[in-house]
């Protein structure tokens, strides 16, 4: 992924995470990172440096909730989506889609001279 791509995608990571948690049972960090990568055919990859700050921020906003569990001799932190999170996801989903539609239609225009 190029630097520009990464920069472009930064804003959409939260929605990817919310999407994953919305459809599934609780997930932990590594699982989220791995799923994003697999489901996007390696197009999207969230580094730990981005992933955890986003998770913590989402939790702070009350969109997701965490709990701890002892697994394989270590403490694992799971995240699950809250009702507020679900609503927020739907909202963002619509927003992103409309932004992308507008973006696409803009980019697909043949003439870029304004209709004056």
């Amino acid at each position: 992924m190029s630097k520009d791509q990464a920069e472009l995608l930064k804003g959409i990571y939260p929605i990817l995470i919310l999407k994953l948690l919305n459809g599934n049972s609780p997930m932990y960090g590594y699982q989220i990172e791995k799923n994003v990568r697999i489901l996007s055919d390696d197009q999207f990859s969230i580094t730990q440096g981005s992933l955890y700050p986003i998770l913590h921020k989402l939790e702070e906003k009350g969109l997701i909730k965490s709990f701890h569990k002892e697994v394989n001799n270590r403490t694992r932190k799971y995240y699950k989506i809250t009702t507020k999170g679900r609503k927020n996801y739907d909202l963002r989903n619509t927003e992103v889609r409309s932004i992308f539609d507008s973006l696409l239609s803009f980019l697909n225009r043949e003439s870029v001279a304004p209709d004056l």
Partner: protein
Amino acid sequence: MLTKNQINQVQKALSRRGVNYEPLLEELTDHICEQIEDHIAEGYTFQEALDSCVSAHVVHSNQRMYTQLNPITMLKSYFKLGLRSLYRNKFVTVLKLSGLVLGTSVFLALLLHIYHEISYDQFHVNKDTIFRIVTERPTEHGDVSRTAFSGAPWGPALVKEIPEVLNTVRFMRYRLPVSIRSEAGQQFMEDGLIWADSSFFSLFSFDLIKGNPQKVLSRPDQVVLTQSTAQRYFGSEDPIGQQIIYEDDVVLTVTGIMKDFPTNSHIQADLVGSFSSLGRSFWFNIIDNWGIRYYYTYLRLQPEASPVLVQSKIQDILDTRIPENNISVTLQALTHIRMGGNRNDELTPNVDKTSVTMEFIIGLLIMVMSIINYVNLTSASALKRTKEVGMIKVMGSNRGLIFVRFISESFVISLTTHFLSLTVIYLVWPYLNTFLDTSLILPPIEQISLFLFSSIVILTVLSGTYTALRMSDMKIIPSLKGDIYRGQPKKLLSVRRVLLMVQFIACIGLITSSFIISDQMDLFFKRDTGFEKENVLAIQLSNTSEAYGLLADLKNKLNGIEGVDAVALSSHHLGGDQLYTSSYYTSSDSINMGRLHIDYEFLNVFGIELLAGRDFSLLNGSDTSNFIINEQAASLFGFEPLSEAIDRNLSYFAQNEEGRYLKQGKVVGVVNDFNFQSLHHDIEPMVMDIQPPRNHFLSIKLGKSEYQSTLSKVGKAWSKVFPEESLNYFFIEDSFTNQYKTEARTQLIVKLFGMVSLLIASFGLLGLTYFDTMMRIKEIGVRKILGSSSLQILRLFIREYLLLIIIGFGLVIPFIIWLMNDWLQSFAYRIDISVVNIIVPLLLMVGFVIVSTSYTILKAARTNPAQTLRNE
């Protein structure tokens, strides 16, 4: 699945890379563990997987941080922060610095002195191939007499007979000061005149300023002056070609001027006369004698020659030439002379290798004490700064940066300490030189710079590492809450306590040693030496022959002075002089003994007690050939009881200007043993007789009153009889005390160091108590509320320190007793170590701890608990 150990490794790897925020650390550990498990499933080993996962992801952030930082700006800011934090904690900074500066100054001063000692004779270009011949000979009582002397004819003969010997130089220095008169008639008494071979300037690397090195000493009656002597004699005139008169007899011509001898040379002189003058102008008949050892011989060997082989060749030659003398020779390397053990007749006094080592150990001990002090104080004061560290960590700092931050503070301290210590040394430099009675040679500037640089670094590392490591290791949340010790068991021997105990041990050790050394010195000064040394004035007589005719006149004049009790002549003075020795015959057996020439008043002046027989008497004409012996001599001759000795025949070979002759006579008296030499030596057997030409000292017993006026009358009488000669007098008691100069200096040094260590320990203790009290201020408050009195609280706090003192005491005392007993063995007369010497330092330490801690603790204990507990 990873084991617990592997999970720990992951966690540590993360911490090392700066992940310190605990909630994140926990999550990331799980994250990396999962990744590693995946890698392992793909066939990686754990270590490979760990390396790839941790470095692939986590490091990026830190690497970026490090590369983005400007290291110089960072260090500058740390340096500034270091200074600021030192300025903020002024009380602690002063305590820390005082201890360190004191310790470092003492250590640096000692190192400079040790350097001076080690640098002795190192400046000679040929130092590695120059050796001195020294000799040993077994004595009658089973000892070995070791002397620096050798015979005059040896050197030239060895150059001829042993091919490995390239060159030789001989010296002679008369045991007493000699008279030198300038042409203008001014008289100087010189004890720094040596007579040396013409090879002197080619063998040694002394700087000749004027004159040809090959020629200045090549002919009889030539003399080279040192710069300061030339200045003294001739002022601004050119000295070359000028003449001086030796002992009012021999005229010497000045042929050269040399730089003053470096203070780190074991050869010291003010004038160097040509050796070829001996035997020609004076000192007849004895210069060719192989058996008389009164000279110093230095040999320069071929670079590849084996000194051991040459030594055995010299031994063979001596065994052939003088088999009856039973002398064994040793070749002593030039650079080993200064610390080459205590030989008799050294040109300049030697130092003991052990005492130099001791000096280093003491210096190191004091340095270690002051570092311990610093570490203790810093680690204690750092406890007040846990919040600061927590804060810095939260802001994104990692272990490495925290470490650098604390080490920078140590660096600032170390730099300041060195700067202040050098200032202290600069200020005390003149006093140091006076105290050590020398002018210390400084190492070359490159060496000093290199040493200071490494010393600053070492001090920084030693003093800062412990605290820096501890602080950088601290967990964020407890450090922010300020309870990093909560839940930890209280250890009896924490690092800080162990360090404190080491200080106590060093303190007790130094104080106990100084007590014991003081006692031994007191023994010297107070012990009955068998003769009365109080109020005895000794005058050294010049060697000129006409003086002897005038001595009777002088004695008469002196006896007439009110306040002069008695006047005596003798060949040696008591205290600091070394006796002649001769072989004495009773029948056919001969025994080697000390020889002293006295007159009729000698026993009277010094209050020496007669145990049998009588004193010499003017009324008895034959007494000029009779003898008085001491108890030791009587017992060696086998005269028991002592009265057996009286009227026994005794003889020895004496020497006068015509040569050797047998002096025969009877023993007329036996005196008690008295310490002719210092108390380092046992009393030796001694025989006394009358030989007026050998009298070099006039001793005057003064009455107890009107000291000053008697002295001036003595001066007047002297100048009437010897108007040309200056009066050189000294008090026997002073000269006796002077023999213990080294010991007196050792005593002073040990006392001084005892005090310094006590002072350093007091700084440390003061600081520690201060912190301890601050940390436990609430505990004190609670205790007060529950009814404790201030004294009870004081007792509680002090108990801990006292326990440390007692443990330290138990550890160090056996070692000190062993060490001191070993040291005492070097004295013929020694004290037994008394219990007082051991108990008093202990009590002193206890008292000192109570005094230095009480103020702070009592102050805290008297504070109103309502104030200290207000925030709970």
